[in-house]
């Protein structure tokens, strides 16, 4: 990574008794696209607002291009912001919205040129005289983006920029924004609660929860090796097995079943802990015919089948008290090949290198579910 362009150093923000940001530190290189991902209330928007200067941190430092901007108002930070609501001025047409910050700074001629350039860049040519209410959601989004870019900001801050749009438009705009950002080379921080958005658009993803930065990594790192059960559950789907007793360096026992996890790097961090939580993604579990037993293979019975288009989401019972249903994603072909039907007994194989192990601190949080992750997960390690 290049020399850090934006740096947050132990930033803490409290609203009364609530810690919205708790010792958050990270940095972004010049031209990098960072996404801050987390459930609502995790502090991601506060982080963005602190970077923007719309809020001022209670403690810690924000540096932009090596300069400490702590206490500097937003107007001095040279940032462009796109808000969730776009905040387009309803009484100004698209052109005037884009030119809003340029007036008084440049000559009329320069403004016209700049606005035309931005409209062209964002694919808005010919829309200049329309008022926001006459534009589609996607077009409004582009106007907001063009307006934010008009002053050629050092930093582009996007607050849930796509959440108000239809699914289809959203997918298209993801690509467009990313391309625009790369073309202009502007350092960008985007806040989102949509994991897909974060993973597809950003160079790096920061996962936040409860005011803390939980994990900072590339999309692949975040997905493949989630740092905590929270990250694991928030991004993608995950099967968890709590209260696994450690019976060897790399082997654990849950409800009488022994699971081996030699490939998990986290297992090394467990130290002296004697219990852990094991996790495996539904797509990593293999379904085998009943007779194909082996390492990490457990007999199971299919309980429900859910058709999800490109895959089937299956739920198996391990037929052991105290173990939850296991979610498994398999392709339609595999379902057909195995002749899977409800109540059909099979073997589930957990490839040892795909089993993740989380230490004690992970145990404190109770129920993780895909859609509604816990709020009080502590960062571990």
């Amino acid at each position, binding site marked *: 990574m290049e020399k850090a362009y934006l740096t947050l150093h132990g930033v803490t923000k409290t609203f009364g008794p609530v810690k919205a940001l708790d010792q958050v530190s990270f940095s972004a290189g010049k031209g990098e696209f960072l996404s801050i991902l987390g459930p609502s209330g995790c502090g991601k928007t506060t982080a963005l607002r602190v970077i923007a200067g719309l809020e001022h941190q209670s403690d810690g430092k924000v540096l932009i291009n090596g300069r400490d901007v702590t206490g500097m108002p*937003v107007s001095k930070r040279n940032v462009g912001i796109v808000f969730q609501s776009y905040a387009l*001025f309803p*009484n100004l047409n698209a052109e005037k919205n884009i030119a809003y910050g340029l007036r008084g700074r440049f000559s009329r001629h320069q403004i016209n040129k700049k606005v035309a350039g931005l409209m062209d860049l964002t694919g808005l040519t010919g829309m200049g005289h329309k008022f926001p209410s*006459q534009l589609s959601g996607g077009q409004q989004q582009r106007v907001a983006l063009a307006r934010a870019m008009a002053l050629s900001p050092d930093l582009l801050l996007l607050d849930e920029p796509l959440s108000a749009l239809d699914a289809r438009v959203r997918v298209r705009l993801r690509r467009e924004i990313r391309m625009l950002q790369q073309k202009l080379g502007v350092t960008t921080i985007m806040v989102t609660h949509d994991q897909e958005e974060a993973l597809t658009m950003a160079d790096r993803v920061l996962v936040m929860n409860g005011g803390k930065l939980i994990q900072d990594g590339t999309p692949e790192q975040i997905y493949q090796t989630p740092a905590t059960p929270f990250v694991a559950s928030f991004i993608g789907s995950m099967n968890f097995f709590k209260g696994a007793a450690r019976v060897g360096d790399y082997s654990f026992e849950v409800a009488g079943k022994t699971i081996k996890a030699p490939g998990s790097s986290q297992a090394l961090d467990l130290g002296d802990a004697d219990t852990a939580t094991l996790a495996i993604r539904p797509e990593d579990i293999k379904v085998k015919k009943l007779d194909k037993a082996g390492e990490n293979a457990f007999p199971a019975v299919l309980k429900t089948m859910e058709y999800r288009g490109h895959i089937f989401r299956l739920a198996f019972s391990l037929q052991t008290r105290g173990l939850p249903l296991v979610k498994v994603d398999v392709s339609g072909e595999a379902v057909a090949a195995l002749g899977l039907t409800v109540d059909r007994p099979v073997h589930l194989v957990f490839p040892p290198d795909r089993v993740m192990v989380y230490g004690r601190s992970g145990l404190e949080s109770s129920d993780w579910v895909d859609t509604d992750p816990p709020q009080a997960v502590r960062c571990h390690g």
Partner: protein
Amino acid sequence: MDSRAGVMDGPGGGPGRILNQGLDQRLDQILGSEAAKRVLILLALVWLIVVVVLPLGTLLLKSLSDNQGNFVGLANFVAYFKSPSLSRSIGNSLVVAFATTAIAVPLGFAFSWCLTRTCMPAKWLFKSLALMPLFAPTLLNGIALIYLFGRKGLITTGFFGAIPGIKLPLYGSFGIIVSEVIYTFPQAMLILSIALAVTDARLYEAAASLGAGRVRTFFTVTLPGIKYGLVSAFFVCFILAFTDFGAPKVVGGNFNILATDIYKQVIGQQNFIMGAVVSMVLLIPTCMAFIIDRIIQQRQVAMIAAKSVPLVNKPDALRDNLALACCGLVVFSILAFYGTALYASLVKVWPYKLSLGLSHYRFTGMGGGGYAAFFNSMRMGLYSAVLGTAVTFFTAFLVEKVRVWDRCRHTVYFLSILPLALPGLVIGLAYIFFYNARGWDFFGMFVPNPFNFLYGTMAILVLSNIVHFYTMGFLTASTALKQMDIEFEHVSDAMGVPFYKTLFRITLPVSLPAVLEVASYYFVNSMATVSAVIFLYSADIPLASVAIANMDDAGDTASACAMSVLVVFTNIVVRLLFLLCTKKLKARTQAWKEG
């Protein structure tokens, strides 16, 4: 560091900038800075302290002092409660206020129910006509009653003997209550029709699907849905009827109430101290009503958050015709009421020479100031409208949009809604005490009053109006501002555009309808009000509403009536102009409003 040069221009966009913008930009820097925002909020706070807190404080102090200015504690209050002829008025005022509320709120509810829950025709017409009393000085309500129910009134004499007459005991509580009902009915109606309009249609559908009948639906859906509106209507009617002074002055007879007692003490006996005491007594229930209403309304916020589906009424011949009959009756009564006033102002010598003419509109040879007073009132209305709108809008803007110094802003907010609880007479008297004082002794040091020069000028009249009607203007502006995206300011901030530019380029144009609404509200009320200004007007600035009071005092009832008619007429014209402007504005801004 200057990186605004821009990617688009490539490095070195700098030379292209306009050079002669130094002043403009320095101004931006000064006005756009956080410090400037704080100064502005501080200014707003100081302004409200000078026009609200200090005058009220002075009034309180006076009520605790004797004529020589020595502190006597509660002695004046003891004297007040020991004199039955004075303290009896508390009960009288409460009776009037409760009776008025008990009639006006159900009436307002019935009327607004018809407007919102039936398919009766010409709703807008009924609604507009029912608002008539808002344009009239309350003195006129009393005067019109004299022409209807006085000894020589139309009803009493049965239209001068054409039909059998009905005698009613006009002077006293009956006359006051009737006047106050007419005065407060439109207020209740407005509040309740807004409350009824936002009720969620899905609740009705749910009730119907669960088999609830009309009556059950009414009690389980309709009433709970508007409970906050009902509470508001109740307190607004109560406060208005409790503190009104115009109608009781005309038809009160020997039925003394607090508002007229203040006037009697101050003007009749020039006993300012007792006036202050009665003012304090008047303020207690008013402030209590105000506080309770505030507390209850605060709970409401959570309830309305969800978006509701508007209710579409289905025609029902019986119900719709009944509604038409009810509203027709109410509107007819109001029209007949003011029609009588108009007629009486034109009759040459009521009841002896019924030929019509404009002789009462000449105002020669009587007190009050005649047309000079009328035009002064128009000027005052205009000034109040322009300055009041500017001040209330700007205060609301500071409170809603300039997010610095929260505690200070909350204080500004509180002081901005407080005037709702202040009766005009109390404001007027407090202003006499505060602005007429030549100075104050602080521990032996004499501090001259820097605001003394305002006393007896048009400025203090305008000031008293601005404060008297502050809350409505403030809340209207503040609602309009709340509906606007808070991020507008942030976007501008991020672009380095100072907040005042955004105020003038975005916020003001977008909230122009609300601005016009506030201005017309200020004008109409300033024209019609008598309570605050009657203590503050000076002989060379006579006012129409005070002229009405004085002419009625001198027995020139017909001319008082004529002047009232002029005021009502002017107010209606101004209101129509407002509607026209709003309509034009809507057409012009249609482009950015649709969608």
